[in-house]
């Protein structure tokens, strides 16, 4: 059984992942990522400190980790969409270097060396008198004010949009569960067929792995490159599995 480490407060999915890999005293590689995949998912599940607007980013990394891990279990497993994503290993290695650089930047920021401009309180005192702006009309102001407001809207929408993105995973898990109950047998390809974009495929995939983990379904692949078949596990409990994956 994997030893559970105490993890410091983390700031994002890559930060969490880096801490996990470093605590295992491993270099960044596919193997080390696969090793910490489950710990990562465990940290994300039900973690109240993850801001709702960041949860979707954690889920994306979780899906990539699960993909890396499952590829080791089922070498034939291949997902074009997930393969196209920027590779997690490269991304984490790069992130690690910037974390190191940010410590040096922090030392400069907190250190005593600093430059000063000339004091604006003394230099900006010459009153130019009234200088009307050229070519500015009341309509210019109207146009600018509308632009300012439209720029603010996404900021306010952000929590809502991010939660919606993360909520998709619950729906996917429910959806799959319902289909398994109804048909007893389905396939991964059939399941992701209606996916609109990459995130949905990742989400579907993670949902599938989650169901496997919770012993709701069995996954079976006949030959290399063939579709993955999903069966309802004979001992599948009756409660809703999405219940255990709180968003």
């Amino acid at each position, binding site marked *: 059984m994997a030893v559970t480490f105490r993890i410091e407060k983390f700031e994002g999915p890559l930060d969490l992942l880096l801490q996990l890999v470093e605590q295992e005293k491993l270099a960044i590689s596919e193997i080390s990522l696969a090793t910490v995949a489950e710990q990562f998912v465990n940290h994300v599940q039900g973690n109240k400190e993850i801001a709702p607007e960041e949860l979707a980013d954690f889920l994306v990394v979780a899906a990539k980790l699960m993909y890396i891990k499952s590829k080791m279990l089922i070498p034939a497993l291949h997902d074009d969409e997930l393969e196209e994503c920027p590779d997690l290993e490269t991304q984490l290695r790069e992130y690690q270097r910037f974390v190191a650089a940010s410590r040096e930047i922090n030392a400069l920021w907190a250190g005593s060396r600093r430059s000063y401009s000339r004091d604006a309180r003394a230099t900006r005192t010459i009153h130019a008198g009234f200088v009307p702006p050229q070519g500015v009309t009341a*309509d210019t102001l109207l146009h600018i*004010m*509308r632009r300012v407001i439209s720029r603010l809207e996404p900021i306010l929408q952000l929590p809502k949009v991010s939660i919606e993105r993360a909520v998709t995973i619950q729906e996917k898990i429910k959806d799959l569960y319902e289909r398994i109950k109804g048909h007893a047998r389905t396939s991964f390809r059939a399941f992701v067929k209606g996916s609109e974009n990459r995130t949905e495929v990742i989400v579907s995939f993670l949902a599938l792995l989650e169901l496997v983990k919770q012993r709701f379904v069995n996954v079976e692949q006949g030959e290399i490159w063939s579709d993955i078949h999903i069966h309802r596990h004979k001992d599948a409990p009756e409660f809703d599995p999405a219940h255990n994956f709180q968003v």
Partner: protein
Amino acid sequence: MNIDAKLEALLFASAKPCTVKRLAEITGADADDVKKGLDALAVRLEESGSGLMLVRHGHEAELVTRPDVAEMVGALLKAEAYGELTRPSLEALTILAYRGPLTRPELEQVRGVQSSLILRNLLLRGLIEEHEETRLGQSTYGVTVDFLRALGVSSVSELPDYEDLRGNATVADVLSQLDEAQQP
């Protein structure tokens, strides 16, 4: 670092005349050393071909630009003061017209960008003015009558869609988040 370099940095940053006494306090040197340091600074500026020079009157010293660039310096300051308004300046002016008077943090909250230099520039151009009322110890700013007149309106309420944009819910929401958002 030599004392003349320290004095140069201090005079530069203060942007106004400093007394020998004050310079001695800050550098921890005695008054005579400060005077010698100022002599050395004046010589170095002259000999190294600097665009700056040291002016001394009585116990005070000030760093200024050399008189032979006065015309160019004047042109720069004029361009900065009278030149076309930048997009950020126009934006600040517009927000103050529709939603003013606002404090600087309130204006920055709506623009989403630090705006202290812009406010100063708009004040110097007579486009905005400080109002008497303050909020949370901060001055508030609104557009001037002169500016409104230049737009051809007699009051902000004559601006197009004024009621609608002034009461805009998005702007109100963002302003209400000010306290939380100010902390990084």
